[in-house]
């Protein structure tokens, strides 16, 4: 036996040393691999690039299937700040490619870094095809940068800017409200783009790519197991008639105001003209921001203001139609009720004037000639109807309810964003203003003729004509006819809204409106060979000359189009609004204009 075996026990020291190292390493691995998931996140950040697959946005057609809005492709240069190794050569190269200054470069870079060092931000948006190709070739040197394709809007009409709306990058509140949206995504900001955002946008897809340590793409991650395909946005068929819309905008050149046309049998809006307007393509592409600021700063023309939905005008004499309907429904007048008028309506020591016309007038004639006194008396009769209502307030509330049923004083909650509700004051308003029981019919007599506190939007006025054309009901005015498929119907708007006026009371009104067009105030709106019915309005307003208003529909026996025209500060309704309405109806029903002289006179008139 060798004496060295006396040291044999030392093998245990050695074994325990080896085994403790083994266990230390096992425990370390356990923590690294099983308990701590930061490494996994870091690994994904290293090697995976999440490429968002943006679906093409839905197309928008007009009611006849003509394309209004389509898509075009563009490229954004994205940056993931953490992955960028900032060197002078990188900066110089990118500054040259993008033709920006180093200061600008640092500014953009720091902005992206402030948003998130790990998440991609847009470094330069909508780069040209040439720049795109150039960058794509040099990507391996531009670590942390990549190119993201996107779809942009392309407009095939220069009209209907407000109705179509525009898309823009999401802002923080929008991102907070809906986590679907990520920095740099586009979202509908106004118009159809906004109200049908969910249908139009489709669903983003995600493609996970692997990149190596030099930022070169190395194919899809696990053969695309976690990729999701983008789902294209649905196409929309707008109810707008492209030709009519464009024609309306042409007619409104040089004028302020709006034209709203509705198909009474469906509530579909045929045109929604607001003037002054802007060309929709101004709000696409790299110049979008600058153009938008320019439009926004034009406080004189306010091209971004959608008058058709947001301008609230005193409806003037067109509101007499409302009172004529409610008066009959309340039983205070009928078609034979006659009121005399001698240049106006005297109350207390005041007179609300009227123009010269035959007297006394019955209901039909009062509409035909637009007699002020007739409606003052009618309103007085409605509000002083003590057989039914104990107080003026009670009578007023009943009147108020019926006016609201005719679509005034409230929003339609249609697919038109940013509509305003006009104003039909509640009795409480007068209680506050004049004091409880301190007001009566004559106090508020101007609402009889659509002045005073009464305000209505052009779309509400067009809807009023549609109600008359339908003799007692309307469909919510809307601008999108079909979603996804041309012949599908927008199910949101199939419900008939009946008004609080019976059908029979519409006949005298219609008769008056038709007579107005043949031998009354609405003659200027007449279209040869087409029976139309209409009502003018001349709205006094604090902004200067009266607004010229006209509402009408045609043909009388089978209404196809109900229309409201407002030309601001243009005087009598018959003077400007009449011919414009006339031409619109001719255009829509006959598809061609025979009265070229009238047309060119209107187009060439500049009223501001």
């Amino acid at each position, binding site marked *: 036996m060798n004496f060295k075996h006396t040291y044999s026990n030392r*093998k245990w020291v*050695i*074994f325990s040393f080896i085994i403790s190292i*083994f266990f230390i390493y096992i425990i370390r691995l356990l923590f*690294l691999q*099983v308990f701590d998931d930061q490494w996994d996140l870091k690994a994904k950040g290293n090697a995976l690039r999440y490429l968002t697959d943006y679906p093409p946005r839905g197309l928008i057609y007009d009611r006849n299937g003509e394309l209004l809005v389509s898509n075009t492709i563009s490229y954004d240069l994205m940056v993931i700040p953490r992955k960028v190794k900032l060197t002078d050569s990188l900066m110089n190269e990118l500054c040259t490619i993008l033709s920006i200054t180093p200061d600008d470069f640092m500014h953009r870079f720091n902005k992206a870094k402030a948003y998130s060092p790990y998440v991609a931000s847009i470094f330069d948006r909508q780069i040209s095809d040439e720049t795109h190709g150039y960058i794509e070739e040099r990507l391996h040197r531009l670590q942390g940068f990549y190119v993201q394709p996107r779809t942009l809007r392309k407009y095939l009409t220069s009209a209907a800017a407000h109705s179509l709306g525009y898309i823009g990058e999401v802002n923080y509140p929008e991102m907070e409200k809906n986590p679907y949206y990520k920095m740099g995504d586009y979202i509908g900001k106004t118009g159809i783009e906004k109200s049908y955002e969910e249908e139009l946008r489709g669903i983003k897809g995600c493609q996970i790519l692997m990149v190596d340590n030099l930022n070169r793409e190395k194919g899809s991650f696990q053969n695309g197991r976690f990729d999701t395909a983008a789902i294209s946005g649905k196409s929309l068929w707008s109810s707008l008639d492209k030709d009519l819309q464009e024609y309306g905008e042409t007619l409104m050149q040089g004028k302020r105001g709006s034209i709203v046309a509705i198909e009474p049998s469906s509530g579909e809006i045929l045109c929604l003209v607001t003037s002054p307007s802007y060309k929709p393509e101004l709000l696409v592409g790299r110049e979008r921001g600058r153009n938008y600021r320019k439009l926004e700063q034009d406080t004189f023309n306010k091209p971004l203001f959608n008058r058709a939905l947001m301008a609230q005008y005193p409806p003037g004499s067109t509101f007499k139609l409302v009172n004529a309907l409610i008066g009959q429904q309340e039983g205070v007048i009928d078609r034979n009720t006659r009121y005399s008028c001698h240049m106006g309506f005297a109350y207390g020591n005041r007179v609300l004037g009227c123009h010269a016309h035959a007297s006394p007038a019955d209901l039909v004639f009062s509409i035909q000639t637009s007699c002020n006194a007739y409606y003052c008396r009618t309103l007085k009769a409605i509000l002083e109807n003590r057989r039914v209502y104990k107080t003026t307030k009670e009578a007023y509330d009943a009147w108020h309810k019926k006016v609201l049923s005719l679509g005034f004083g409230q929003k339609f909650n249609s697919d038109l964003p940013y509509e305003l509700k006009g104003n039909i004051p509640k009795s409480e308003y007068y209680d506050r203003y004049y004091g409880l029981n301190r007001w009566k019919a004559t106090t508020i007599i101007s609402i009889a003729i659509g002045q005073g506190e009464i305000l209505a939007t052009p779309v509400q006025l067009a809807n009023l004509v549609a109600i008359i054309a339908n003799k007692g009901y309307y469909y919510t005015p809307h601008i999108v006819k079909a979603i996804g498929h041309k012949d599908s119907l927008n199910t949101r708007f199939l419900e008939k809204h009946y008004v609080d006026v019976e059908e029979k009371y519409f006949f005298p009104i219609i008769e008056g409106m038709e007579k107005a067009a043949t031998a009354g105030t609405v003659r200027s709106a007449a279209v040869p060979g087409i029976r139309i019915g209409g009502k003018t309005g001349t709205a006094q307003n604090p902004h200067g000359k009266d607004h010229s208003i006209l509402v009408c529909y045609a043909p009388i026996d089978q209404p196809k189009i109900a229309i409201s025209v407002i030309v601001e500060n243009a005087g009598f309704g018959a003077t400007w609004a009449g011919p414009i309405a006339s031409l619109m109806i001719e255009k829509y029903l006959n598809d061609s204009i025979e009265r070229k002289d009238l047309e060119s006179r209107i187009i060439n008139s500049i009223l501001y």
Partner: protein
Amino acid sequence: MIKTTHKNIDWLLILLSVALIAIGWINIYSTTANDFTSFNFQANYGKQLIWIGSAIILALFTMVINYRFYPSFATPIYIIFTLLLLTVLFIGNTTKGATSWFGIGNIGIQPAEFAKYATCLLLARYVSDKDCDLTKSKHLFIALIIIIIPMIFILLQNDTGSALPFLFLIFALFREGLKSWILISGFTAIILFVLLVFLNQWIVVGIVSVILFTILWLFRKIKRNYPGVLLIYALIIVYIFSIETVYNKVLKDYQRARIETLFGKIEDAKGIDYNVIQSKIAIGSGGFFGKGFRNGTQTTLNFVPEQSTDFIFCTIGEEWGFVGSSFVLLLYALLICRIILRAEQQREAFVRVYGYCIAFIFFAHFTINIGMTIGLMPVIGIPLPFLSYGGSSLLAYTLMLFTFLNLDAKTNHWT
């Protein structure tokens, strides 16, 4: 004769080494193959297959030689490889600052790996001599010289990593009678060094004093040698104050940085810890079951440097997860313990010492390499035996292990 030889061969060791080589090749294939369809002998996985073939031939050759050859020729083998280490300094090729390999055709040979083998043989031969007594300074000195000569040459090649495993041969000397206090002082020195990275030297002096006086007080009934205690105390204090000079003057900047990043004292010093972070990301992201063969993103996409050589363990960690990597750890632990166990059963002192020597060479590589990939050791570039890509290391470790198997099979065991 041959029959008995067969009986005595330790098939478990063969099985363990074959398993490690196979696992190594699978992972080298995973990181270096570009596609599955074709086989390329120019790619690393293809070359490694050729090396494995050569290793098998070498193993067979090693096994059939008469076992007496090894102790008898230990000295000439040692001299030859030491000379090779010297020549490589002058005519060798340089990679990453280290002049450590010969280029023969398109293959490179790293003599340092074979020098470990030679050193183990000579050390075993010397220490197993009946007259050798490691408690005697003269004998200990010679044993240390055997270890240190190749180390010096390797350090001169600027290849610190390859020199480090030689130090682990001290453990083999410990088994053969090296005085315990030498090992204890070694460990004390390492612990003090780590403390000094974090703490002011005066605080460390304070800690040492408190511990020393507590021990003296606890064992106050035992007779003590006061001048001895005082000497130890003085030596420790000298060590503490000299370490700063050594640390700042002798160590190179990158070595200091590696040590400081290891202890988290500096973060991302010019990307020095890039390797370690990427390595931890790769291993850590593997999770419990791993991402699966060829599904590792960090290793296949080159985020981890040296992923088929020094950082091969990252691929295992990422693609095979905790299950895979702890299995590999287990294989190594079994391999090392098995060698020691067989060595302990040897009647022949030479075989026992040799067994211990190679066990600790394996252990050194295992500890340093895996410790580095999981962030417990500073970055030191040495291969993982049998797993890493590379011909020299594979052949050298085959030589080491199969020489032991030959010796082990043909000599007598205690029963």
